[in-house]
């Protein structure tokens, strides 16, 4: 009789027991431009870095230094080579991958911290994961979306107001946009992709855009000083060599509407 009670009880206990988070998790990671990879002491421009969407931060790095992708966790700090079969790309979002971290944990690499660098090493082969240098100076729309996957990904998720887009598509007079931003600025990462999406959707020859990357901290930027930029991001809208308006603050909630409202019916001076 006891056996009839004990066996189901043990089974229930085993099934209900809490399992280790890392042993049964699928981690979602998105492409990031905030981190870069160095292997053999040189920057690896073609390396792809993905960062977990939820904390604690984890990274998936595709690097030439190792034959398989490297999965890095920060809490606890560890790095291991991961079977590519455990990595799947989202069918709708090319910048989103999922890593199955369940099952046996092997292929560990040694990890050490050197200032801002996380150095991953195996048998003398090293890969360094570190903060990207800020994107500085004048850039095109294509540059920005290429080097900052966060902008590319957030742009695809923004839904601009179709009426404002129509207004912008109908613009005939040449209009210039100078967009001051910081690639290191989290607020820019949230709102700038909206403008990126608007510019991609409008795709008008009448609108020329220059993205201008500003350095972080107290470092000076001559162009930002010339335009007296006091906050990021700021889009300066110009026509006929003269400033018409700026998109700042709440104007970034729906940049297409801000832009359409400012430009509709305004002749070049």
């Amino acid at each position, binding site marked *: 009789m006891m056996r009839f009670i004990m066996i189901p009880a043990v089974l229930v206990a085993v099934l209900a027991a809490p399992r280790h988070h890392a042993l049964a998790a699928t981690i979602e990671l998105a492409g990031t431009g*905030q981190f870069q990879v160095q292997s053999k002491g040189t920057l690896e421009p073609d390396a792809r870095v993905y960062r977990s969407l939820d904390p604690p931060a984890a990274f998936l790095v595709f690097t030439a230094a190792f034959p398989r992708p490297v999965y890095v966790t920060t809490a606890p700090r560890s790095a291991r080579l991961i079977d590519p079969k455990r990595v799947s790309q989202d069918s709708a979002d090319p910048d989103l991958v999922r890593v199955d971290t369940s099952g046996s944990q092997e292929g560990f690499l040694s990890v050490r911290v050197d200032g801002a660098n996380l150095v991953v090493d195996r048998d003398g082969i090293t890969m360094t994961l570190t903060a990207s240098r800020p994107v500085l100076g004048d850039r095109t729309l294509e540059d920005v979306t290429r080097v900052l996957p966060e902008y590319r990904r957030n742009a695809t998720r923004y839904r601009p107001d179709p009426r404002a887009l129509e207004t912008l598509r109908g613009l005939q007079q040449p209009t210039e946009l100078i967009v001051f931003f910081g690639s290191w600025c989290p607020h820019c990462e949230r709102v700038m992709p909206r403008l990126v999406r608007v510019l991609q959707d409008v795709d008008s020859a009448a609108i020329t855009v220059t993205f201008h990357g500003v350095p972080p901290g107290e470092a000076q930027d001559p162009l930002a000083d010339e335009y007296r930029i006091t906050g990021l991001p700021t889009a300066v809208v110009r026509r006929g060599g003269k400033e018409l308006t700026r998109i700042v603050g709440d104007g970034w909630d729906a940049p297409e509407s801000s832009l359409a409202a400012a430009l509709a019916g305004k002749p070049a001076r």
Partner: protein
Amino acid sequence: MTNHASWPVRRGAASRAVGRDRLEAGAGSLAARLLGLVLLIAAWAKALDPELFAIQLGELAPLPSPVAYAVAIAAIGFEAGLGMALLLGWRHPAVLLLANATFVSFTGVVVWHLVGGGEPAGGCGCFGQLLERTPRQALWEDLGFVALSGLAWLGRTPRSAVPRWRPVAIAAISGVALAVCAPWLPLDDQATALAPGVGVGATRLEEVVPELRAGHHLVVLLDRADPASTDSVARLNERLKLPGGPTPVWGVAEDDPELAAAFLWTAGPAFEVRSAPRRMLRRLHRSLPRSALIDGGRVVATWTGLPGDRDLDALARGELP
């Protein structure tokens, strides 16, 4: 007869003259006392966080930090003394000249901010973090004070030049004493924009963490270069059972990409740490780390450092301490 006939006219003129003198004296005295009050409040606001005032002075003139701090303490004492002198109606020409010079210099600083394209919003003007104003708003306010300091010259009498050395000295010494002791006094809520009852919009934290507008959250302001902040991360991870605890935790730290990476590798926060501009962050603390509990978009509690173990345990259970 002629004298008698003209008497009422002369009496009226004299009466009007006396009335005008009284009006001038009253206006001058009121202006001086108002300015005195303004200066005392301004001295109090600066004395609560003299380090911030020293940083602001350092932005105006390239002073080494210890010198800027000493100048800040002296300026607070001066402001408190001058404020008390004016509040008591001591309108000696030297006192009024000092008041004129002080308010003109305040205005000059604001103009300098405007011309130099300073912060679009922030603790501009003489009230430090007590009032959030743009340089333009601060300019109008300071121009008003300059006008008042001019009005304070009106209707001076021999009585208004009677010295009030003792209360002035007491005010100046008290201002200096408060400024010197303030870092060790529990005045974070009074000295910063992060205090119970304040909305997250007013703290500007919602610009960095929009999620704070709803629900309850623990926000921890961190210095990524400070070991105390690194240690506090381990304690938060453990006590709040992160990741996945019932209370969302957000770290907020200065926007330095290299420090952010180093902090990520060394501290291993199991919560998101977002970056904020230094100026924005400095309004919210006197020392780091500093924590705040946000509920429904309002600050409900603050702690210098981290919440105590009992409070952290309550948060780990999803309860408000």
